[in-house]
């Protein structure tokens, strides 16, 4: 109807802006990936040109893949990220629900307490955390990383989710209560599905720093069996710092799995976000 009044120039304008920004966003990524398939001379000679049969070279990849088990690192990263994400979302949503739904003594104090963690980098607690993990024999296990990331992700998750939980209509919950549903059922059956979009948002927020973290894998789980992709890539960068073929290949290897996963996952993500809008 009235939306049809959107004029052509405006649509073109919108596309122009979005397209420009898309180019800006993707350019560095593309330049890295494209050049990773070229020979050393071609990388320096014509960085903007795509690889031709003459300049195509996989030397970077053979160097990098010969040095470490990237697939294994990738699995480690995946396990850590998915498990931490699961606990952050579950525990975070539960706590956020308690804070936004019930009035009890110390409610806002508890809210502030749980928000403290956003204000200090957890890196500072490194030595104490490491001592804890040494004492409980968790050094060089993925469990140690999952525990730390769960704790690290919770404050922000609670902060954002309680903001959104307050927007769930009271009438709905009260209707549930009148029907005799327990508080747990109300939370899991009624409230959780409604806050799915914000859960998706929190998931993204939580996932990115976990996947990309360098510090805790280095300290808590640096062994070959538990290395994550980011740590692996960082070591490679250190090791081949002048070998641009290997550098670009290592960067591409670190980028591509995330990229593929993200492209698959983003549909889900967007559906999660938009489904809430049409309720």
């Amino acid at each position, binding site marked *: 109807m009235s939306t049809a009044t959107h004029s052509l120039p405006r649509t073109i304008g919108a596309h122009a802006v979005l397209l420009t920004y898309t180019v800006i966003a993707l350019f560095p990524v593309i330049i890295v990936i494209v050049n990773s398939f070229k020979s050393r001379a071609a990388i*320096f000679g014509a960085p903007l040109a795509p690889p031709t049969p003459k300049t195509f070279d996989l030397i970077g990849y053979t160097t990098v893949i010969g040095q470490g088990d990237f697939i294994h690192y990738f699995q480690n990263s995946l*396990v850590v990220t998915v498990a931490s994400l699961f606990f952050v979302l579950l525990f975070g949503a539960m706590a956020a629900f308690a804070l936004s739904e019930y009035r009890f003594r110390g409610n806002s104090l508890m809210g502030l307490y749980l928000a403290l963690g956003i204000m200090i980098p957890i890196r500072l607690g490194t030595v104490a955390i*490491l001592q804890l993990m040494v004492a409980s024999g968790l050094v060089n296990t*993925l469990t140690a990383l999952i525990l730390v990331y769960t704790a690290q992700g919770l404050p922000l998750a609670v902060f954002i989710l309680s903001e959104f939980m307050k927007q769930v209509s009271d009438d709905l919950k009260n209707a549930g209560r009148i029907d005799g549903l327990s508080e747990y059922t109300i939370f899991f059956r009624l409230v959780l599905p409604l806050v799915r979009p914000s859960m998706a948002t929190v998931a993204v927020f939580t996932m990115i720093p976990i996947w990309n973290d360098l510090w805790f894998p280095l300290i808590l789980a640096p*062994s070959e069996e538990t290395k994550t992709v980011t740590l692996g890539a960082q*070591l490679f960068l*250190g090791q081949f710092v002048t070998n641009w073929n290997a550098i670009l290949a290592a960067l591409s290897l670190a980028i591509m799995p995330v990229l593929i996963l993200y492209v698959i996952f983003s549909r889900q993500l967007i559906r999660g976000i938009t489904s809430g809008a049409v309720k």
Partner: protein
Amino acid sequence: MTTKLLTALLLGTSILGSAGMAYAQDVTLNIESWRGDDLAIWKDKLIPAFEAKNPGIKVVFAPSAPTEYDAALGAKLAAGSAGDLITCRPFDKSLELFKKGNLADISTLPGMENFSDVAKAAWQTDDGKSSFCVPMASVIHGFIYNKDAFDKLGIKVPETRDEFFAALDKIKADGTYIPMAMGTKDLWEAATMGYQNIGPNYWKGEEGRAALIKGEQKLTDPQWVAPYAELAKWKDYLGDGFEAQTYPDSQNLFTLGRAAIYPAGSWEIGLFNTQAQFKMGAFPPPVEKAGDTCYISDHTDIGMGLNAASKNADAAKTFLTWVASPDFATIYANALPGFFSLNNTPVKMEDPLAQEFVSWRDKCKSTIRSTYQILSRGTPNLENETWVESANVINGTVTPEAAAKKLQDGLDSWYRAGK
């Protein structure tokens, strides 16, 4: 579904967690190091050589990136999860670890007699009574040059500063090559390959360094400011945008054959040999007048110590004794040309460029970097400030005199000579 996923994940983590304990019969030694570059050499050459002679001891070389090494090691030592063997930075950094009780006293370790007092000095208490790391190697500063370029332009290897700058002018006038490959982005290049490289000729090596520690000389004295004045002149001979040129950029610039002279540390040799497609030569920092005594920075750079909390101390000591042996020295120095053994037994090196560097030990006087011993114990840290100020001087944002004054003021704020 989620519970299944959860169980699977927990199972998965517990399996991965226990994997590390599978081989517990043999003693396994972990080496902490910042030398990720040497991973292949340790894996393929050094460790097999040791394990062949010492059945029952397994060794794992577990490096972290140089920039994270010190912080990560500190945290692991504090919590008790660090490896058995610790690669040691020279002087105060390792001394600090020893004082905290993280490094064991190995003065009586068999094999330590293979090293001269000078070599051991980098890893000893100030009174020289206790040693805590086995010296592994030193590195020498100088200049590596593109021989093809020199031949083409008819330049002969400079011996004096005037010849040096004349050569730079000639290369610049010709225009084919960037005269000198160095950048200031990473800061340390300016200090290490610049100031500490050319400086000893001005402050007369050990003589000046000792006088600085005793408080008889100041960083604002002419012999300490003059190297900065020379660095300031380098600016005109560096590549476009050298302010954002990183250390790897400089290395690539030189090995791609685009630059003629590279202010170097001898550790570059191995890499340059594999990457450069032209003939290379090296010369020591030029002196003022022909015939002057020359001084070179021959810096004790890397050693290995024993984690005092190691549960496998005996096996680790066996390993350290091996590190102190001529066997190790021969393999190491040849696998890593440019890391010169500190062992008393002379090591035969094959690499001509490495031989060139080490030959300077005979004609010049050796010294170590001026900022490493004692002078970097306080805040502000003299070594780190030297990085910053050397880069500033080359960038032209600070005069040599102002840079020197800032460093001396910083030093004066905490250092009392002869305390």
